[in-house]
């Protein structure tokens, strides 16, 4: 009985085995087919931004095929890049992002070094606390923060609300916890022998950090920098709450509040602005994709 089943099983198995490579070929074809579908789905909005940005308003309001540009024109780009208002948004965004990245790195790198290498009272609790802070979303804090800054203005007479630089105080609450957290992970993975050798050679703690840890953990540092930049460039809720005058706005809020006038949507310019706003993160991503992905996965996998 059992020998019969084995006999039966043997040929079917070899037949199946013979078709394995064909199966694989088909699996591969299906993979490419579905990946193409998903890639189209992923790239559809940015491509549509590009298509619309090359159209004139007349072509947009004419009921032609929306997926094709019949009369390509750069008038939207020229219009935006010569408008002082738009350049002002771009400048504000760039300024805020660069300052926030600098502040974030100045705060989180030394803190991560101390938390990873120099055990002190409460250091483990603080590391957990940093991680928990990273989980607090912006939409929970914007109302009390707004009130806190309003009260601060009342008490001290220093008006921070509706100034672009108020964002320099607020964005670090989003970037610092995450950057500290992933830098702790990178620093902790550096062998102890390295900094022991440095200490024996008479290096101070500060020198150990700048001469050993920062060069060795440079990939992590780049990943953290990219993260801080992307977050501060993309942030929408805080600038929407804290800034209202048009000369203080950053790019995302600026595009939405000035290019949409009541019910009139100037779609050509909106899409151009959105594309230009998406360009800096996309360019960084195109060149530093591996660091970008390293930072993305480090948040949840480094522990």
């Amino acid at each position, binding site marked *: 009985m059992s020998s019969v089943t084995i006999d039966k099983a043997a040929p079917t198995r070899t037949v199946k085995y013979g078709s394995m490579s064909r199966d694989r070929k088909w699996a*591969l074809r299906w993979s490419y087919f579905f*990946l193409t579908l998903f890639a189209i789905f*992923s*790239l*559809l*909005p*940015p491509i*549509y931004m590009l298509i*619309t940005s090359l159209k004139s308003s007349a072509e*947009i309001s004419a009921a032609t095929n*929306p997926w094709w540009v019949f009369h390509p024109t750069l008038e939207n780009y020229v219009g935006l890049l010569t408008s002082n208002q738009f350049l002002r948004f771009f400048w504000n965004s760039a300024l805020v992002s660069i300052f926030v990245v600098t502040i974030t790195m*100045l*705060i989180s790198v*030394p*803190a991560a*070094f101390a*938390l990873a290498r*120099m055990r*002190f*009272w409460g*250091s483990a609790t*603080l590391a957990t*606390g940093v991680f*928990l*802070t990273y*989980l607090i979303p*912006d*939409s*929970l804090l*914007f*109302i*009390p*923060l707004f*009130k806190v800054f309003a009260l601060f203005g009342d008490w001290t007479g220093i008006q921070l609300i509706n100034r672009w630089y108020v964002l320099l*105080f*607020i964005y670090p*609450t989003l970037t*610092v*916890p995450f950057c500290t957290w992933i830098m702790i992970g990178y620093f902790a993975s550096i062998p102890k022998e390295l900094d022991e050798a440095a200490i024996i050679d008479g290096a101070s*703690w500060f020198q150990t950090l700048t001469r050993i840890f920062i060069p060795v953990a440079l990939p992590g540092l780049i990943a953290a920098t990219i993260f801080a930049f*992307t977050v501060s460039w993309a942030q*929408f809720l805080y600038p*929407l*709450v804290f800034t209202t005058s048009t000369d203080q706005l950053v790019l*995302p809020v600026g*595009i*939405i509040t000035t290019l949409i006038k009541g019910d009139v*949507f100037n*779609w050509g310019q909106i899409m151009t602005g959105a594309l230009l*706003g998406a360009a800096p*993160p996309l360019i960084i*991503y*195109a060149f530093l*994709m591996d660091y*970008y*992905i390293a930072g*993305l996965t480090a948040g*949840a*996998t480094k*522990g």
Partner: protein
Amino acid sequence: MADVALQPDRVGTAQPARKRSSLQKALKRKSTAAFLMTLPLIILIALLVLYPAFYSLHLATLNKSMQRFVGLGNFEFLFKRDTFWLVVKQSCIFAITAVFFKALIGFIVAHFVHNIPAKGQRKWRGMLLVPWVIPPAMSTLAWLWLFDPSYSAFNYTLSFFGIGPIPWTGDAAWARFSVILVNVWYGAPFFMIMYLASLKSVPEQLYEAAAIDGANWWQRIWYVTLPMMRNIIAITTLFSLIVTFANFDIVRILTAGGPLDHTHIFATWAFRIGIEGSDIPLGASVSLFMVPILAVAAIFILRDVNKRGNEA
């Protein structure tokens, strides 16, 4: 056996102890230096995260002009409003559906990327991660234009198949679908990248063993891939649950809560009431409703992260 094992251990503990006493002074200096290095971080978290967080608890107990203490009056008021329950319902539908589909699509796409030859993977991964890179406020504008009531490019395409114009953001049910769709589009790449990283860490031998045992593709996924990825799936899902539940950009730009408040979630409704309606205490009370769900997710994430830390 035990003696041999104990011996180096005792030596190991005795030596640092002696060393430590002689380095007492240096250690003291070290902890001071460490404290100074973390001081900016502590100040930042205390002043701009912890203080506002507790301050919002206080705010939630004040009346609209913030002069009178009303206790739980704001919450009582909220519980009596239909819009509030609509927001609760929509927040849960939005977060759970979006996270589920993000996880599902991410899982499927990660498998397809994992399937193809290694040298082509980089290119595909690069393309598929683009939605995550574009600032959500910018990409949602493109979706808004794709959903435009009179010039919708989707409706133009669908009209060739005889499917009538779909009110993407005009009708309550379709608007709910649209915000979820955009959120899935934005978030699925994150899952894809995380799953891809963990798929690569599953040892090939396990699949070979499963194939020898005659497991089909479904059994390979169910008995090999999923158990190996359980931890990363849990962490990614919880992370995404927090972010999706607290989402603001997409809903705000796409529908601004409409039609008739049907797509409001906690963040957008809190903004509408607290900032636009300048009833700060009521807005603070609304956003406080996010805390329980966030706290539960955070506890589970922390448990998993600590577990991973111990394993490593």
